[in-house]
């Protein structure tokens, strides 16, 4: 029984991390129809920020990291995407690849290829012991961080004027502009929020792995792309479901697969992904607006 609970918490914790990753990508896609490959590099920026700010009190280190990642996210929009505002989404995608590789190689030149250790407070790697149950503090922190961010984002999108403008722009940018929604305002807001999501994901990944490398952004961004697509492109809810599904599936397969098959866990995970896409090519959540456009 305790095994089941521990595995469930693990699954939820990985699922929340993937949901945060997917949400950062889905938010930008919703508004700009851009799959932002450089979102992975924001995670790298977060990792090196933690490393550079090591020595500061932890809250300042985290706050500084979030601010630096937001600054990079905004710079990304200003430098790599704004000049291409009216270009085809495929051009934006290529631009996001280019800027991602540029950033990865800059990190390689500046920090070198060897992994840098980022010491985080010891209590994060402790276990919470409740009776016979041992739960990693980090898992609990991941779940809480994701839940708080999701709830804040939902409140922001439904309660604030910028949030309502962002949702309108995500559904139909042209008509939103006719009603006075400024393109730059909503796009900058979306990049700033995707920066907060990337910074949080980055801190959780670093807390788990303990090191930062220039190439560490690629795997998370691919997971985010897959989660966004199985969730239903353009739907924020779908991205969260997709991320949770992918994370939970990974942990469940890790547990139930026989030992001899465990090295091939990811093959099973992506087998299920393929199955989902075959059965529901439109993704788990389909937007009404997308239906009406057909």
């Amino acid at each position, binding site marked *: 029984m305790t095994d089941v609970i521990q595995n469930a918490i693990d699954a939820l914790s990985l699922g929340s991390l993937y949901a945060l990753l997917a949400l950062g990508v889905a938010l930008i896609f919703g508004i700009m129809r851009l799959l932002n490959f450089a979102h992975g590099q924001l995670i790298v920026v977060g990792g090196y920020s933690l490393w550079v700010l090591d020595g500061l009190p932890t809250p300042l280190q985290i706050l500084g990291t979030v601010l630096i990642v937001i600054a990079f996210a905004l710079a990304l929009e200003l430098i790599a995407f704004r000049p291409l505002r009216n270009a085809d989404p495929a051009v934006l995608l290529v631009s996001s690849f280019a800027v991602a590789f540029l950033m990865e190689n800059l990190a390689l030149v500046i920090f070198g290829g060897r992994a840098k250790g980022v010491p985080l407070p010891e209590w994060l790697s402790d276990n919470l012991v409740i009776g016979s149950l041992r739960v990693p503090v980090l898992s609990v922190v991941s779940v809480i961080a994701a839940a708080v961010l999701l709830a804040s984002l939902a409140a922001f999108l439904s309660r604030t*004027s910028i949030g*309502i*403008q962002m*949702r*309108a722009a995500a*559904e*139909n940018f*042209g*008509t*939103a*502009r*006719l*009603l*006075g*929604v*400024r*393109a730059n305002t909503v796009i900058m807001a979306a990049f700033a929020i995707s920066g907060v999501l990337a910074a949080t994901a980055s801190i959780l990944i670093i807390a788990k792995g303990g090191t930062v490398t220039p190439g560490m952004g690629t795997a998370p961004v691919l997971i985010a792309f897959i989660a966004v697509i199985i969730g239903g492109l353009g739907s924020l809810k779908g991205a969260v479901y997709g991320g949770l599904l992918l994370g939970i599936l990974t942990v469940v397969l890790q547990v139930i697969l026989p030992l001899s098959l465990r090295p091939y866990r990811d093959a099973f995970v992506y087998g299920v992904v393929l199955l989902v896409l075959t059965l529901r090519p439109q993704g788990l959540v389909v*937007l*009404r*607006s997308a239906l*009406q456009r057909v």
Partner: protein
Amino acid sequence: MPPLLEIQDLVVSYGGTQAVRGVSMRVDRDEAVALIGPNGAGKTTTLNTVAGVVRQAGGEIQFGGQNTRGEPPERLVRRGLALVPENRQIFTSLTVEENLRLATFMGRSPDAAADIEVELERFPALRSYLRSPAGSLSGGEQQMLAISRALLCKPELLMLDEPSLGLAPRLVEVVFEALRGLRDVGVTILLVEQNAFQAIDFADRTYVLSAGRIALSGTRDELRADRRIESAYLGGGLDES
């Protein structure tokens, strides 16, 4: 006083083909003007260009005495130019209330709550759906929402692109009743319509567009009697006749 909207020799091209080929027209303050013509005549393109959605290839558009060239829609709506786009284009995933509030965020409406209340009195059918996704509205209700939303932009010129499209006759009447109400309190209107005779009856003056050019124009009384309207819809070259 100069006209509120003055279009001179407007040319608009889409990838090599000219959709609008030298249109000149004007809308005076407090006037209701209709722009009619067969499918593909360039009516929607003309409205979209005035609203800043489409860039012109040639000609001038003056709104309130100032050139609009290069101004994006979000700036023009702040100058008082609102468009109810073709097919209504309401935000189906937002609630009805959010659709209405969206138009008040740019600050042209000093008391948003009171202005929204005015719209709910104009279209009482919307009131019971305030908290529902706008996608659950019927076509007629969506059109009412689209008109209310444009009015909440506090426009000096209200442009409507085929507000009767796809509506049952009873709802077309509801929409036109509302438009007559607006016309009679002095809202300046530029209306694009398929339904030529309804539009001519509604407007003080009407322009007939054919193959990207103004083929004919006149007041309500002048055009009611004019047989050439029918030939414009049959696609005949009016210039030669």
